[in-house]
């Protein structure tokens, strides 16, 4: 990797697509192979799968946010025709607990049973399960389970939960704090002492429902003869689910096979192991019947983990010229009812990434994770990094306004300079390589920023509230040195290339870019390469698909496996061609001698020879199969600049996004069409948080958003077309030079749009302190500003 080439601006003019850097498949916008089944309705999603003898599960769930379970009476249920059985907590004696954190000085674990025992801690917590011959009967039967509850006082607001005397979500803990940490770097007190200004603000990053269009589901089948539990599940982590189920159910890991079928989106919500996964798997063994459960949308919004959920207090020590000397940050994370590993990851990532692209030498960050009577928090697209970007990018905006600076200038003066990389942050991370200034310049040019400001001036003269918002973002990607990812390449005797990957798609489209990488490496047509995934039987191990890491890790693992194949095929071809293996070239479906290109052999002839020991060089093992568990040396940090133009209707409070520009640096790009698709979708989800999405509870912990009529997700009406281009700074931290793009748009869009709305409201001099920016909230800001006209 040539590290001297820092930032290459691609695309000469606006709208010009970057050119592939060499001939080959990598870099080209190839259409996806899986689409041909999906556009014809021939996908195989969890809801579509059937197994002979399958029965259906329906869960009985708590209607109370916090209650003591006095009794469960399921005697009526078995009288209903078609009911197979019912399970309550007392039937799950031999079944282990769901995962929680390991206890240490900072972390408090919270034991969690698959079905609630004695106490329920959020509305929707599963209390019992009913199995019946079909789904309708199962739902009928679940209604007949009588649970007597004694309601307890619930705690819903995360800051109320922190106060002494608050109701306790878990009695065995002395408070609702389940994680507390403090990290101080540099001389923070000195920074504040030297500051010309101190800017303080409180930000709320509301809870969101990941809400993939396909809900969660599981189908479990137990083969009593072979002692194998086979599970089809909507999971981002098949091997993780295998190992966790084995541990909880007391089965050997070799006795559990997990298959993730086609998945209709996940966005982080299908990472963790859920109570239903355990209960359905256990029921399949206990009743010796395949058992299927697919979540309703209502269950999905209420009982699938939520993302975000942070209150952030920020104090910035600022010099008169806009330079930030130090930050004090307090993050209060709303963990929900249990301290799950996922609930802890989010605020810890925020606490690592909260300084963004800025060179801030002194910082103190304190994190509280706090239990409340709500469904547990977990990953949602970005997982902790959107909260970090929001924190710092909103802070930059507020500082710029206080100092009367353009939001561009405040960023320029604080950027980590390009010569400072690799750069170690107060969060303890070492950024790989970046040129923020060049990316910003490209964004200004791409959006015609100066012209936008002129247009804004004109709009203001006409009395219109037009705003321009800027956010520059970076994120930690390519997890990580501690989390390898796997791939294997097989070349069959016919010369077909089969790639098995540990990561697997839920919309990302792994097939095509992985095939592009492998086809280029082996010099074969992409049509010869097939990609499979999502089955624990394919590979010895894999880590999860999350964190924008598939191109960097799965892609690198596939590339390195293909290289190993190439090495072995070179040895075989060298015997067939009587050439030196080191001078062989793989291209166009042939293996050539570089010095004498007329000496060549078809790729499939070499493949065939690999399975015939008498054709092999002495000592070479037959067959062509190579496996790689790729571990990167460190994380990667993509970045970019987003600019939004909005207009606020001062009479109705409605916000309209007029224009959206994005310039991202995600390193090398394997398939620009898929990358741009990720950017569009990501920005839309970030816009959803800014404008319309919010999981709401009443004071007693009753969820107020239970369907897509109440929990709004973006529609065709939310954003105009997004204009996107990129700069390219390949990372030196993986062999492909790729960084990751899945979460980029989501991370950037939320602060970009909120900053734009705050800019639109600048005549009212208000700070936007919560989301979503629905009309009623915007009107309340205007009305309470004291500057309301008329």
């Amino acid at each position, binding site marked *: 990797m040539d590290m001297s080439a820092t930032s290459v601006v691609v695309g000469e003019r606006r709208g010009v697509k970057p050119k592939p850097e060499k001939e080959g498949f990598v870099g080209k916008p190839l259409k996806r192979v*899986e689409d*041909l089944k*999906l*556009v*014809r*309705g*021939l*996908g195989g*999603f969890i809801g*579509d799968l059937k197994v002979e003898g399958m029965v259906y599960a*329906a*869960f*009985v*769930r708590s*209607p109370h946010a916090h209650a003591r379970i006095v009794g469960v009476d399921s005697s009526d249920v078995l009288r209903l025709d078609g009911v197979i059985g019912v399970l309550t907590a007392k039937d799950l004696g031999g079944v282990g607990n769901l995962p929680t954190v390991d206890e240490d000085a900072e972390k408090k674990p919270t034991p969690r049973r698959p079905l609630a025992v004695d106490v329920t801690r959020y509305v*929707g917590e599963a209390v019992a399960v009913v199995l019946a011959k079909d*789904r*309708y*009967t199962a*739902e*009928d039967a*679940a*209604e007949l389970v009588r649970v007597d509850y004694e*309601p307890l006082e619930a705690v819903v607001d995360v800051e109320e939960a922190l106060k002494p005397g608050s109701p306790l979500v878990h009695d065995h803990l002395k408070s609702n704090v389940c994680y507390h940490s403090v990290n101080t770097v540099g001389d923070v007190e000195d920074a504040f002492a030297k500051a010309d200004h101190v800017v303080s603000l409180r930000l709320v990053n509301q809870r969101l429902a990941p809400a*993939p*269009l*396909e*809900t969660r589901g599981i189908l479990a089948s137990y083969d009593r003869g072979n002692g194998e539990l086979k599970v089809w599940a909507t999971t981002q982590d098949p091997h993780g689910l295998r190992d966790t189920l084995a541990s909880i159910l007391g089965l050997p890991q070799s006795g559990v096979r997990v298959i993730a079928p*086609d*998945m*209709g*989106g996940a*966005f982080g919500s299908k990472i963790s192991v859920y109570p239903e996964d355990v209960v359905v798997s256990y029921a399949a063994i206990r009743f010796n019947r395949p058992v299927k459960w697919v979540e*309703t*949308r*209502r269950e999905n919004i209420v009982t699938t983990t939520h993302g975000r959920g942070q209150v952030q207090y920020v104090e910035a020590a600022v010099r008169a010229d806009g330079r930030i000397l130090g930050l004090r940050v307090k993050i209060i994370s709303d963990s929900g009812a249990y301290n799950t590993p996922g609930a802890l990851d989010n605020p810890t990532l925020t606490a690592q990434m909260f300084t963004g692209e800025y060179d801030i030498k002194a910082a103190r960050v304190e994190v509280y994770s706090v239990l409340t009577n709500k469904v547990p928090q977990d990953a949602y697209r970005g997982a902790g990094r959107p909260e970090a970007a929001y924190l710092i990018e909103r802070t930059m905006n507020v500082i710029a306004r206080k100092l009367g600076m353009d939001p561009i200038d405040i960023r320029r003066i604080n950027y980590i300079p390009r010569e400072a990389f690799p750069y170690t942050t107060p969060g303890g991370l070492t950024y790989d390589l970046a040129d923020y200034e060049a990316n910003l310049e490209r964004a200004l040019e791409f959006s015609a920023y100066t012209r936008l400001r002129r247009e804004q001036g004109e709009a203001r003269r006409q009395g219109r509230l037009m705003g321009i918002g800027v956010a520059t973002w970076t994120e930690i990607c390519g997890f990580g040195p501690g989390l390898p990812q796997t791939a294997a390449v097989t070349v069959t005797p016919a010369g077909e290339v089969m790639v098995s990957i540990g990561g697997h*798609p839920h*919309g*990302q*489209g792994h097939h095509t870019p992985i095939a592009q990488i492998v086809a280029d490496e082996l010099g074969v047509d992409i049509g010869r390469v097939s990609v499979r995934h999502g089955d624990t039987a394919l590979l010895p191990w894999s880590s999860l698909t999350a964190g924008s890491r598939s191109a960097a890790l799965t892609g690198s693992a596939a590339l390195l496996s293909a290289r190993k194949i190439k090495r072995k095929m070179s040895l075989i071809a060298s015997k067939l061609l009587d050439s030196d293996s080191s001078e062989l070239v793989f291209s166009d479906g042939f293996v050539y001698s570089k010095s004498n290109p007329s000496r060549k052999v078809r790729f499939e002839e070499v493949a065939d020879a690999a399975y015939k020991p008498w054709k092999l060089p002495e000592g070479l093992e037959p067959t062509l199969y190579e496996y790689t568990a790729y571990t990167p040396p460190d994380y990667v940090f993509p970045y970019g600049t987003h600019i939004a133009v909005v207009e606020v209707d001062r009479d109705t409070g409605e916000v309209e996004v007029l224009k959206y520009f994005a310039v991202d640096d995600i390193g090398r790009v394997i398939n620009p*069409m898929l990358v*741009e*698709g990720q950017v*569009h*979708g990501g920005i839309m*989800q970030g816009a959803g948080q800014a404008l319309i999405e919010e999981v709401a509870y009443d*004071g*007693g912990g*009753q969820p107020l958003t239970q*369907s*897509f*009529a109440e929990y709004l*997700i*973006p*529609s*065709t*009406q*939310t*954003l105009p077309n*997004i204009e996107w281009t990129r700069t390219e700074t390949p990372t030196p931290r993986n062999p492909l030079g790729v960084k990751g793009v899945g979460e980029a748009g989501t991370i950037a869009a939320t602060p970009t749009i909120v900053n734009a709305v705050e800019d639109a409201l600048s005549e009212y001099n208000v700070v936007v302190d919560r989301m979503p920016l629905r009309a009623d909230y915007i009107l309340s800001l205007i009305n309470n500003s004291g500057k309301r006209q008329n």
Partner: protein
Amino acid sequence: MQSDNFNFECEYWVRGSMSSTRTVRVRVNGVEYTKEVEPRLLLVDFIRDHLGLTGTHIGCDTSNCGACTVIMNGRSVKSCTKFAVEADGGEILTIEGLASDGNLHPIQKAFWENHALQCGYCTPGFIMQAYWFLKQNPAPTEEEIRAGLSGNLCRCTGYQNIIKAVKAASEELRAKAPTINGG
């Protein structure tokens, strides 16, 4: 404020009527079916579970997302909030009936070519809605496409490429118009 308004057990709401069944005769993708079903059976479950046409998906149960969109008697309907008995005597077109002789319908092709799908779960519903919409408005503007598809939700694509695909499909369909017979 405590309330008992949360009743998870009421997802399928018509109860106690399981003993009686009704006959449904319906033509789906050109094939006649006659089935005995419970009156409460939802059309989407009839299509998926009784006819085995699983390309029609369930996304929300409440008519908000449009993943279950099919064409019934010439109109687009959200099959998650129709009963199977309402289709009796009618004609239905689902995503499986759109491609003919193994050739993708121009809308399917346009979705593929324009990367208008990611996870593909909402896609059949979008394609069926676009199919109906383009029959109503064969030459739509971008704004009209956005309005025409506003009852369908996609969580992956950000809609931009879907709009582009429907525009491209409208152009191809118009170019081919004389030979298109509505199937």
